[in-house]
């Protein structure tokens, strides 16, 4: 089937959460699984996020889809969390993705939802994990605001740089980028302390 026709039909179907498909599964979940092979790798991510936005699942359904999903489906779920989940109830999905070593999942986990809800300790470790695994920190949503004035993150980055230097290994370039962001610059309005969620401060940051 033509991918555009397929997607248009699938988006209509997704608006009816009661519709079921093969194996008695919700039809929109079936379409979410099939999207990659129908739409092709270049359009799969966009098709999946569009399906999720059309179906508007709550945290329970998103959690089910994530747990039963392939890596590509999980990335799609992580991408729509900020749009579909108003509170921090989907945080376990972000934490699950941050436990993996799949760099594309790590990057997807560090979108606006994580910027808004992830606690300071987990967020700092996620940044360090990006440096370890080669995920560019440009993928981290809201990095400048969350890193600003974060002395603990600066300490962790410094220790990591020392460890690399002691081993005669290169320090990732991104480490210097993040380290510079942790500095307190008097000209910039000071951000609130970095512990816990900071909804207002981070939500406006688009990068």
């Amino acid at each position, binding site marked *: 089937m033509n991918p555009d026709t397929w997607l248009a039909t699938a988006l209509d179907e997704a608006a009816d959460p009661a519709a079921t498909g*093969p*194996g008695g599964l919700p039809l929109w979940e079936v379409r979410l699984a099939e999207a990659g*092979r129908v739409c092709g*790798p270049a359009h799969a991510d966009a098709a999946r996020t569009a399906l999720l936005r059309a179906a508007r699942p709550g945290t329970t359904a998103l959690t089910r889809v994530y747990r039963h999903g392939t890596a590509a489906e999980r990335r799609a779920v992580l991408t729509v969390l900020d749009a579909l989940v108003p509170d921090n109830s989907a945080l376990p999905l972000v934490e699950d993705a941050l436990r993996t*070593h799949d760099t594309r999942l790590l990057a997807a986990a560090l979108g606006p939802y994580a910027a808004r809800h992830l606690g300071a300790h987990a967020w700092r470790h996620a940044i360090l994990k990006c440096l370890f695994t080669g*995920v560019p920190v440009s993928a981290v949503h809201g990095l400048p605001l969350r890193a600003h004035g974060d002395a603990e993150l600066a300490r962790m980055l410094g220790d990591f740089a020392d460890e690399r230097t002691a081993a005669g290994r290169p320090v990732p370039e991104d480490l210097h980028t993040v380290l510079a962001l942790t500095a307190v610059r008097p000209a910039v309005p000071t951000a609130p302390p970095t512990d816990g969620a900071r909804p207002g401060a981070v939500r406006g940051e688009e990068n």
Partner: protein
Amino acid sequence: MRIFDPHIHMTSRTTDDYEAMRAAGVRALVEPAFWLGQPRTSPESFYDYFDALLGWEPFRAAQYGIAHHCALALNPKEAGDPRCAPVLDALPRYLLKDHVVAVGETGYDSMTPAEDHALAHQLTLAHEFGLPALVHTPHRDKLAGLRRTVDVVSESPLAPDRVLLDHLNETTVKEAKDSGAWTGFSIYPDTKMDPHRMVAILQEYGTDKVLVNSAADWGRSDPLLTRTTGEAMLAAGFTEDDVDKVLWRNPVAFYGLSGRLDLDRESPSALHEGNSLLRGGE
């Protein structure tokens, strides 16, 4: 030499193996779900494993430019364990996934009624989900097992030309071929088949609908024996086109029956904005 390994258990192999396979010419593979050596005791253990075949292994393979696909099933060795039987009910949601190109491996281990049921049920699932099936033939009582397998296939809604009968050898190849199924051969260092016996079978039966795999797993096995077999074919007078047919075009044709083969994956460097991902295991 481009190689598609149609049966290899990468979950049991190191990342070094992916690197060596790529260097040897492997560009694509299918990882069928199997037994881990230690029996599983609950369905959830299977689901974590299926998740790995749909998540972590494709990611690892992509680092080396290898297109990873999988076949999913309740494997023959655990099909008789009632603790694992609920996996059959959960399979539909997994069989829908991209890069699931077959039901497998299913088939007989000890030829029990529970295995009869699992095999017949999973052949029916393959038919319902538009997938071919990778059917393991037993290591003990092999010829009787092959015959019973062919009977179950013929009674199933799945056409024989959508079935790959695997782990064949000199004693089972003729009847397997006569059944109309695709024929699979596992090349092992000690057991199953070796490259020279494989060449002799190709000389006698031809290259049509023949797939050669390493079936490498946690046991004594070698993921590069597909390449060794290709070289043995060339040394015996087969052409490069013959080798390409057996090691690439035949597996592409068989698993292509799913309509889900995706051999044109993103290059490793494109996976994440040009950043190298090879350090991911730190």
